[in-house]
C-alpha cells in the first residue's frame, strides 16, 4: 500500500532531515512511526502526503509514485496533521462538505458518513458552528471525520491523539483498528509508546533521519517493553 524507497530529504543549508529511508506498509497494517522530536517523522509524513516535494528516492502509494502521480495518490490517502488548522470562516459542516466535494462524494453517502462519525465523536450538535469557535480537540475531530469521509485506502496521521479527550481517543483507536481490519492501512507518528504497543502490528523507529528498526511489533520488542526497546535503540544509535 505504501512503499518508501530510499527517501532522503535535505533542507536548504545542508541539514539532512531524513536519510535513505525505506519502509513498506501493507494492507491491514497499523504502523506506528516513533522517534524523538526532530528525528524526521513529520518530514517523512509531509513527503508522503505531498506537502513536501521529494527530491531523492521515491514514495509509492498502491504502486503509483507520489512524484509523478500526485493527484491519483492523494485520492487514495487521507491525512490528519498534529495541529489541524482549518478554515475558520466556515462551519464544521461547510468544511466537511468542501472536502466531500473535492472527493466527489454523493449527497447520500456524505450524509451517512458525516452523521455517523460526528455522532461517534460527539460533535454532531456543533457542526453548524463556525470552526473559529472550536477547541483544538474539536478541530482534530473534524479533521478526522474529513479524512475518513471519502473511504481512503491509506490513513496518514501525525500525532492523532494530541488534544483529544479520553472518550475521543478511545473512539479513534477503535476506528483505526476497524479501518485496518477492513483492509485499510494506517501509518501514524506518536510519542505515546503504550498506545503503539497495544494498538499496532508493526512499528518503525527513526533517529536523526535514519530508520533504526522496523518490523512486526512482537519481533522488535521480543520479551521487553516498547519503551525499553526504544530507549535502548535510540541510545545505542548515538
Amino acid at each position, binding site marked *: 500500500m505504501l512503499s518508501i524507497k530510499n527517501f532522503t530529504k535535505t533542507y536548504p543549508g545542508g541539514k539532512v532531515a531524513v536519510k535513505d529511508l525505506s519502509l513498506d506498509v501493507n494492507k491491514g497494517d497499523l504502523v506506528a512511526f516513533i522517534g524523538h522530536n526532530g528525528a524526521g517523522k513529520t518530514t517523512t509524513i509531509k513527503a508522503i*502526503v*505531498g*506537502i513536501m*516535494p521529494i527530491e531523492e528516492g521515491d514514495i509509492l502509494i498502491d504502486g503509483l509514485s507520489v512524484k509523478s502521480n*500526485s*493527484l*491519483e495518490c*492523494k*485520492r487514495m*490517502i487521507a*491525512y490528519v*496533521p498534529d495541529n489541524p*488548522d*482549518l*478554515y*475558520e*470562516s*466556515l462551519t464544521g*459542516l*461547510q468544511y466537511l*462538505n*468542501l*472536502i*466531500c*466535494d*473535492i*472527493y*466527489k*462524494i*454523493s*449527497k447520500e453517502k*456524505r*450524509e451517512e458518513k*458525516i*452523521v455517523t462519525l460526528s455522532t461517534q465523536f460527539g460533535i*454532531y*450538535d*456543533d*457542526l*453548524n*458552528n*463556525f470552526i*473559529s*469557535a472550536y477547541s483544538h480537540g474539536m478541530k482534530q475531530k473534524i479533521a478526522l471525520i474529513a479524512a475518513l469521509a471519502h473511504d481512503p485506502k491509506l490513513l496518514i496521521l501525525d500525532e492523532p491523539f494530541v488534544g483529544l479527550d479520553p472518550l475521543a481517543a478511545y473512539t479513534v483507536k477503535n476506528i483505526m483498528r476497524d479501518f485496518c481490519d477492513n483492509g485499510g492501512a494506517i501509518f501514524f507518528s506518536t510519542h505515546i509508546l503504550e498506545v503503539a504497543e497495544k494498538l499496532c502490528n508493526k512499528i518503525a523507529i527513526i533517529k536523526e533521519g535514519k530508520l533504526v528498526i522496523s518490523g512486526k511489533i512482537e519481533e522488535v520488542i521480543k520479551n521487553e517493553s516498547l519503551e525499553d526497546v526504544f530507549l535502548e535503540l535510540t541510545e545505542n544509535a548515538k
Partner: protein
Amino acid sequence: MRNSFLLIKNYVMCFLGSLIKNKKNPKYITAAIIFMSFSAIIVGAFTMTAVTSTTMFVQIAANNPGAERLAMYGNCSTALMIMLLLTIMRSAYTSKNTDVVFLLSMPFKKSEIVFSKLFYNYIFDLLTVIGVLLPSYIVYITLVPNLTSAMQAQILLRGVLLVLLLPLLTNALAILISYIIEKIASLFRNKSLIRTLFIVVVCIAYIICYFYLQMLITGASEGSNVDDITNMFNALWPMKILALFSLDGDLPSLLYIVLLTIVPFTGAAWLKTKLLFVDSNNVQVKSKKLKFKQHSATYTLFVKELKYYFSMPIYVLNTILGAVMYVALVVALLVLDVDGIIGYFRTIPSLPSIIMDEPIFTIVVLLSMCITLCVTTNTSISLEGKNFWILKVNPISHRTVFTAKVLLNLALTVIPVVLGGFVLSFKFGFINLWVLILIPLASTILSAIAGIYINLLYPKFDWESEDAVIKRSMSSFLGLFAGTVIIIIPVLMYWSTWYKLIDVYSMSALFIGYLFIVISLLLVLLDTRGKKMFEKL
C-alpha cells in the same frame, strides 16, 4: 516602563527579522528596491503637490495679503485625510493577539502589554505621516516669503509636533471604532461579516469626507476673496485647529491639539487594557438541520474564498476600492460633463488632441485602470497561511485552486464592469458598447491572473495576522500595479505616435487583442512554471 520597551524591542526585532530572513534572495532584493522607489515616488508626489499649492497661494497673496496662509490649510487637509485613512485601516485590522495569553502568564502588567502594542502601531503610522506630511511644512517655510528665521523654525517645530501627535489620534479613533463594531457584531452569529460591512460603511464615509474636502480645496483655488475661502476652510473645525496651531501656535489651539490627541489616546489605551483578553464567546447554535449538497470542487473552493474574503475587513478594504472608484467614475461620467473629467489631460502639452477629440478610448483606459486596482488574487495564496496544507494534501489540481481564486476577483469586478459599460453606452452610443465592456473586462481578468503569478513569485505563509500579507507583503504591493503597468504601455505608445497611424476604434480592437494575448501568455505561464512553483510551496 522597562518591560514595555523590552516588548517593543522584541516586536521591532521580529519585524526586522522577517525582512532580514530574505535578504539573500535576489527577487526579494529587486522587490525591496521597487518598494523603496515607489515610497520615494509617493513622498515626491506629496511634496510636489505641496509645492504647487503653496506657489499658487503665494501668487494669490501678491494681491490678497494673507492668502499664503491658505497653503497651510491645504497641508492640514492632507493631514486630516491621512489621519482618517490610517484610522480606517487600523480599525479594519482585527488583531489576533496570539501572544497575549503567553505574555499575560509572564510578569507583565496589562498596561505594559497594551502600551507596547500601541507604540508598535504608532511607529508605523508615524513613518507614514513623516513621509507624507513633514515635507509640506518644509515646502511652506521655504516658499512663503517674508518669514523670519525664528518664524520658520517655529512653524517647522509645530509641524514636527503635529506629525508626532497625529498618529496618537489615529490609534485612539481606531480602537474606539473597533470597540463599537465589535459590540454590534457580537450580537450576530456571523461576526466577521458584520464587522466587514461596518468597516465598508466607515470607508464610504471616508470617501464622502474626501470628496467634501476636495470640493473645498477646488472652491478655494477658484475663488478670489481670501476671507470667503478662509471661512470655507474654517467650516471644518478640526482643520481650522490644525491650521491655526501650525501657523500661529497660540495656547488655545495647542490645548485643543492636546485634547484631540493625548486625551483620546489615553482613554483608548485604558479601554484596550480593560478589554485585553476578554473572551468574546461566539454565538453558538445547536445543529437543527444539516444541509448536505454536492457541488464541483471549483464551486466549493470559490464559495470558501468568498466567505474568507468577507470575513476579513482589511482584505475587503484593500481591494474593493478599485471597484468603488470604477462605479464612482461611471456615475461621474453619466452625471457630469466629460470634458470636466478628462479635461486634466488638456493641461499636459505633450499629449495629442485625440485624447479629447475621441474621448471614448481615454475614458475606457481610465475605467480599466480603476478596475485593475480591485485585485484579490495577489495575496490569496499567501492568505491560505496555515490552512495551505488542506490544498496540498487533497486531490485538487493547481488549475482548480487558481480558478477559484480568480473567480473571487471576477465576482467583485465583472458585475460593475458589465453594468457600467451598458449604462455608459446610453451616453456614448451603443456602437461603443463593445469597447466599454470588453476592455475593462479583459483588464480585470488580466490583473486577476497576474495577481496569482505574482503571489506565486512572492509567497508569504509565516504570518500571524492577515495584515502582514494584505498590507505589508511584496506580492500585495506589486500585484496592485501589475495590471496598470501592462495596460499603460500600449496606451502610451498610442498617445505618443500610433494615433497618427490608426483611428480610435482600430486601436481599441488592437488593444483588446493585446490584452487577450497577454492573458493567454499568463495562463500558459501559470500552467507550466506556475504549476511547478505551486507544487514547491
